[in-house]
């Protein structure tokens, strides 16, 4: 790890003043479960590390008139044990449970989950975010078993965020704050597909801190997350599906279906949403939704199996959502 300056501000105002205008000047440290390994591998070499764990404004979960406010430094474990979240947002709880390591649940934060870098093994071994070598993608010609099935390139990594898909399905926003003010961004627009090596996979700017997540009320919204996992112990899911169904009696008024680990961002399966409107969720409707979800899939040489996993994850997430 490269030597760095360490700051531990007590207020948000102090914190944003310590950030840089370009990536590489400063990194924000919360749980550190990703940042520290990025630094150890020299993938991030910030001149300054700004610890935000001591900033009260970023903490806590509270009910608001419109839904729920989750502070960015709320840990996965805090979220998992929060009664308001448990009561209304099973999709968030199921996503949190998928982070199958008590140590990471205790340290890792919700803000950190959204801001974490991709786990692509080409990126993590120093080949760059897009993993290009001599103008060719190492991913396309190499081992892409864990890579994107919904991408036209040049990025083929998958977003590793556990909470991105359910938050998008629930219509959540994130609040981003800089020294000059704050802005709210839909989580769906927070994730972006980088087109070149110098851009990032999230909309956060180098001078901003993700301060809170605003989740609309899920009253009357059936929601669930289903993860297909190779291992039950600590491991990244192979594919996830998060669904949020606004119901009218037994039929779906509107649906949101968002897939994880299949694209450089959480992937909104718009075709499924259209197909589900006005339907009653049962085994065959759920199965048809799964089929619709993979319409635009473009698997790479070694990840065709993920197409099948998407079908199953969507089907099972839908059935799980309407189970109760």
């Amino acid at each position: 790890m490269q030597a760095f300056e360490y700051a531990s501000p007590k207020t948000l105002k102090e914190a944003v003043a310590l950030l840089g205008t370009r990536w590489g000047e400063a990194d924000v440290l919360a749980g550190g479960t990703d940042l520290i390994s990025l630094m150890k591998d020299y993938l991030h070499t910030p001149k300054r590390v700004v610890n935000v764990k001591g900033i009260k404004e970023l903490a806590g979960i509270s009910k608001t008139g419109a839904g729920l406010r989750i502070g960015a430094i709320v840990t996965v474990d805090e979220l998992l044990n929060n009664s308001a979240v448990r009561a209304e947002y099973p999709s968030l709880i199921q996503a949190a449970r998928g982070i199958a390591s008590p140590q990471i649940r205790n340290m890792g934060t919700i803000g950190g989950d959204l801001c974490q870098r991709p786990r692509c093994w080409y990126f993590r071994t120093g080949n760059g975010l897009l993993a290009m070598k001599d103008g060719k993608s190492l991913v396309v010609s190499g081992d892409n078993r864990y890579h994107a099935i919904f991408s036209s390139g040049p990025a083929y990594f998958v977003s590793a965020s556990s909470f991105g898909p359910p938050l998008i399905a629930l219509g959540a926003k994130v609040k981003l704050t800089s020294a000059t003010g704050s802005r709210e961004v839909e989580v769906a627009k927070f994730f972006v597909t980088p087109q070149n090596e110098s851009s990032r996979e999230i909309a956060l700017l180098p001078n901003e801190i993700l301060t809170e997540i605003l989740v609309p009320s899920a009253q009357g919204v059936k929601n669930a997350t289903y993860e297909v996992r190779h291992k039950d112990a600590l491991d990244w899911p192979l594919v996830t599906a998060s669904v949020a169904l606004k119901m009218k009696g037994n039929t779906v008024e509107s649906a949101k279906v968002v897939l994880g680990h299949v694209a450089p961002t959480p992937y909104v399966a718009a075709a499924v949403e259209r197909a589900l409107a006005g339907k009653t969720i049962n085994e065959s409707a759920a199965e048809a939704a799964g089929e619709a979800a993979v319409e635009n899939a473009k698997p790479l040489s070694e990840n065709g199996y993920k197409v099948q996993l998407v079908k199953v994850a969507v089907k099972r997430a839908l059935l799980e959502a309407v189970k109760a």
Partner: protein
Amino acid sequence: MPEYSWPPMDKRRVIGKRISRLDGIAKASGRAKYSSDTNLPNMLYGVLLTCPHAHATVKSIDTSAAEKSPGVKAVRVIAPAGTEIQWAGWEVAAVAAETEQQARDAVRKIKVEYEVLPHVVREEKLEEVGTRAKPSGERETGDPDAAFKEADAVSEGHYGIPVLAHCCLEPHGQVIAWDGKKLQYWPSTQNVSGIAADLGRALEFPAAQITVEMDHIGGGFGSKFNADRWGVECAHLSRAAGGRPVKLYLDRATEVTIAGVRPSAFAKIKIAGKKDGTITAWESESWASGGIAGGGLPPIPYVFAAPRTGIPNQRLKHMAVSLNTAPQRAWRAPNNQQACFLTCAAIEDLADKLNMDPLDVYLKNVDKTARPETYASQLKKAAELAEWKKLWRPRKEAKGTLRRGLGIGINTWGGAGHQSTCLTKIHPDGTVEVELGSQDLGSGTRTVIAQVAAETLGLPVDAIKVKIGRNSYPNSGASGGSTTVGGVSSSTRKAAVNALEKLFAVVAPALGVPAEQLEAADGRIQVKGNPAKAMPWKAACQKLGVNSISADGENIPKVAPKEGLNSQGASGVQIADVTVDVETGVVKMNRLIAVQDCGLIINPKLAESQIYGACIMSICGALMEERIMDPTTGRVLNADMEFYKLAGIKDIGEIIVHLDISPEHDQKGVIGLGEPPAVGGIAAIANAVANAIGVRVPMVPLTPNRVLSALQRRMA
């Protein structure tokens, strides 16, 4: 000649008891100090620079900036200009500095120019490796062509088991202080007594001036016998830094990349049988790689190829594939897992062709093994524990989303005791020390030694001070090949008997009988058959005056079979019970049953623990573990513990261990157990999955990807 033989089964007070391991609390509480916990005053940190290319020539290397880097005390060039590098991860240079971070910073300042050469790093598809595949053995017995023609059924299949890494939790490494006159060495090693000679040879420094100390090791599995290049370089760094101790441990990526792998094995297998299940012929074209030197032929057909009685008609052809990957090392039963998987998978596929229960096919063919009765009884016992008759269904009946299946794997191993010398000391205050230059790999060697000494001296286990992990103690073999328990138990037994004889000679006059009439039992020295005529242990030892007793005992492998304290030849059967989700391809372990014999068992609890560990490793190997090479860069893609997947507690299911303890096995003496139970699990799990889903998944580990592909091929 003193009587060394083990006390009869029903007379043992300490041996055969389920005593918890003596260092269990220290390990569980973190108090046990592993070699990598060694931190000394004035210590420097060593870091390696490794090559990022799989095949390259070093054109130039410039260490000048690293030498000037803050805190740097020594810099070594390991691969000078002109060196041809054969795998990514090859050691190129090393630095020692005041802090680990300073050493890492300095290593990054070393400038190396490489001429990159073409590489081959994947061997799964033989047709893609070109001239890297070289013929490496052919064999033919009987008349395979005729046998295939006459057979009632022939099964043909493709099978593969990949390279996997030892992935020791404590990586390879050491601390060394070498001032030119003496060398102090704290390695993480399976070879306490022998490693000084290995290091000394490389340094041209007398082994007698090297002291080795190791209290605990965090995993070796066959990969930690030698000093290795990092040990040699660590010594040179220390010397160059004026003799200051240097700590050099591999980081996780380097550990997974270069510190040991199990070779792969792939085969096209044709196997034939008669309607009654008799296997009549075997034909295989196999290939394997364990790095640049290729990979040897696993012993196939496994177990069912006993001399004279084995599968009569065989034709084998093997190719060794040379890859630009780090070399193989011994991996817990070298080549046996591969052989077992290839063989048992082919046998169960043949059983399916014959419309037979594979259990019956194995039973039908036990006469082709070296131990027909043992395998027959173990198969039956394992089947009973697995509820085989109730739960097993033919492959063609597989249906539903969640499908349960059962499968079998069979193992065999030697496990004779290695050379071992033990020195037992009885002091006038009654304390007892037992010294051996051995090591406890986590298998419970310390505890076993204490039990044998306690049994022999008639004392409780906690009265014995076991001293291992120093090369100043009497020479004891490396822990490989499941040879440790046989070696140390025999030498400890003999040393304790010899020490006791000396004590009897001193005590006999006071008890008024000849020394031959004395025995040690229940903390006393007493007259045989007359416990009333006795002296407490402490009082007996006081008779020594100021002179302690020292006596040694040696296990010499050549003469050990005559003495009967240890021998070789273990066998076992594993049955896996799995559930496969056919929509996702995810395999879940329900149960893994292990029936195992291993001669006289000194501590059933530790023996069972060994088997639990072996079963867990088998689950990892069957479902998760594989080294993944990138074709373009030639580097390991999963040199971490994120995508180098190992099972966690939720992935293991229930493990049922049955130790085959019987007078018949007991009379063979002690036999090693480290390896045999690690052999059959992968085959059993792979067979259970084939049984569950109705089709063979050709290659392990059985990832969702591979399971789904196999299901799709069947539907197509």
